[in-house]
C-alpha cells in the first residue's frame, strides 16, 4: 500500500509539474487522435450525408454494415493495418509501419464508421423533417445538404467528439501498428500498458489521470454543445 501511495504522489507531481516526458506522450496522443478524427470526418461525413439523403438498392445493407463497424475491435483493425503496412503488405513500400502515420491510419479506420453512422442518423432525421420545405425553397440537392449540415451542426460536433473519445482511449490498434517506440510512437494508452507491466506505476498513473481528464472534458464539451443547441432552439 505504501508503494501505491507513493506512486500516486509521484504521478500527481509528474502531471502538475508538466513533466516533459509525460507531456511528449500526451502531445503525441492528442496529435495522432485529432488528426485521425479530422481525416475520419473528411471521409465519414460525406458517406453519412450521402447515405442519409440517397435511395438506392443495397442502401439498407450498407447502413447496417457501417453501423455494425462502429464496434470494430481495435486489435483486429490494428492487425489488418499491420498486414497492409508490413514489408510484405500492399502498402509495404510506403515504410509506414511503426510511425505516427500508421497510428493515424488505424484510428481513422476505427473512427470513420462512428462518424458516418451517427451523421447518417442525424442528417436523415433532419431530412425527413426538412425535405419538403427545402424543396419549396427551390434548392438543389447540394444546397439542401449544406443547410442540413448547418442545421445539424451541434449533433455533428458531438459525433466528432464521440469519435475522438474512441480514438484517444483505444490501445489495441496503436500498439500493434505503432510498436510503442520511445519518443516516436508512444502514446498515453500504450505507455500505460507498458509502464504498468514494468512496475513503473507513477508514469502509468500520471497518464491515466490525464486520460481521465480528457475523457471528462470531451463529455463536458458534448454537454455544453447540447446546451448551446437548446439555447438556439435546436430541439
Amino acid at each position, binding site marked *: 500500500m505504501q508503494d501505491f501511495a507513493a506512486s500516486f504522489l509521484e504521478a500527481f507531481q509528474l502531471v502538475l509539474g508538466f513533466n516533459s516526458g509525460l507531456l511528449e506522450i500526451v502531445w503525441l496522443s492528442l496529435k495522432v487522435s485529432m488528426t485521425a478524427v479530422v481525416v475520419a470526418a473528411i471521409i465519414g461525413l460525406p458517406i453519412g450525408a450521402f447515405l442519409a439523403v440517397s435511395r438506392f438498392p443495397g442502401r439498407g445493407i450498407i447502413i447496417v454494415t457501417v453501423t455494425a463497424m462502429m464496434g470494430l475491435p481495435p486489435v483486429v483493425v490494428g492487425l489488418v493495418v499491420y498486414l497492409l503496412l508490413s514489408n510484405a503488405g500492399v502498402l509495404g513500400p510506403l515504410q509506414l509501419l511503426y510511425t505516427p502515420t500508421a497510428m493515424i491510419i488505424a484510428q481513422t479506420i476505427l473512427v470513420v464508421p462512428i462518424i458516418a453512422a451517427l451523421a447518417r442518423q442525424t442528417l436523415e432525421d433532419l431530412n425527413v*423533417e*426538412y425535405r*419538403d*420545405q427545402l*424543396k*419549396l*425553397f*427551390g*434548392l*438543389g440537392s447540394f444546397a439542401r445538404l449544406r*443547410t442540413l449540415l448547418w*442545421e445539424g451542426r451541434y449533433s455533428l460536433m458531438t459525433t466528432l467528439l464521440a469519435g475522438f473519445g474512441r480514438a484517444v482511449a483505444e490501445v489495441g490498434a496503436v500498439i500493434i501498428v505503432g510498436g510503442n517506440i520511445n519518443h516516436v510512437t508512444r502514446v498515453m494508452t500504450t505507455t500505460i500498458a507498458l509502464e504498468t507491466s514494468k512496475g513503473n506505476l507513477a508514469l502509468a498513473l500520471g497518464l491515466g489521470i490525464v486520460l481521465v481528464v480528457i475523457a471528462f472534458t470531451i463529455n463536458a464539451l458534448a454537454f455544453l454543445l447540447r446546451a448551446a443547441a437548446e439555447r*438556439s*432552439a*435546436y430541439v
Partner: protein
Amino acid sequence: MQSNTRPVLPLIAKGLFVRRKGRVLLDVDSIAIDGSGTTVLVGPNGAGKSLLLKVLSGLRVPDKGQISWNGLAPDRQRYCRFGFVLQNPVMLRRSALSNVEYALRAVGHDKSEAKRRAPIVLEEAGLTSLASASARVLSGGEMQRLALARALAAGPDLLFLDEPTSSLDPASVLAIEAMVKNASRDGMRIVLIAHDLAQAKRVGDEIIFMHRGKIAENVPMEQFFKQPGTPEAEAFIAGKILVPKEQQ
C-alpha cells in the same frame, strides 16, 4: 402575355392517381388553376386534400397522371414563383428574421437585398417584435404567421396553404385570413385547405369538395351552399362527418 409574367400558371393536372396498400388515396380526373381569386379545398379528414396539394406542387410523385405548370412539368427553378405553407411549417433553427432572409436568398436575392427586405416582411406580418426570437419556439399562431410571411416574401404567383389556421386562437385566425385576403387582392392566385366551412365562406371565391380521394364538386362558393351537388356534400355541410368506408 400572361404566360411570361406568371410562369407557374395555369396549373393543370390530369388523371392523378395514388394508391397505397390497395387503398386509393387520390383519384382526380382533372383540375385546372388559373386566373385570380381564392379556391378553398374542403372535405373530411383523410379525403386527400393535403396529398392533392403535394402532388400538384411536385413534392409527391403520383402513381399516374400529369401535372403541368404553364405547360411544363414542375421544376425547381420555378419554385421561386410558387409558395406553399405546409400544414406543419418547418422553421430553420435560427431566428424569425434569419428564416425570412434565408427564404429571400433562396429565391435569388443577394445577401444585402435579403437583409434589407426581411425586416419589411416581418413588419407587414406584424412580427417585428419577434425578429430575433428563435423561430422554432414561437407559438402556433406566430409560427403560422411567420410561415405565411416567409412564403409571401418571395412574391409568388400561386400560393398553397394547408389548414393554416387549425388550432389557432380567433385573433391569429383573423390575422392569417387578412394576410391571405390582401395577397389575393394583390392578384396572387390562392388555394387554401380550410378545416371549417365558415372560413371557406370568409376567404373563398370557389370551392372544391373532396371525398375519398376524388374531387366531388368544384363550384363557385355560393352555389356549393345553396345547392350541393352530391349527397356527400350535403352531409358534409350539415356537419355529418363522413367516415371512410373501411373505418365504419
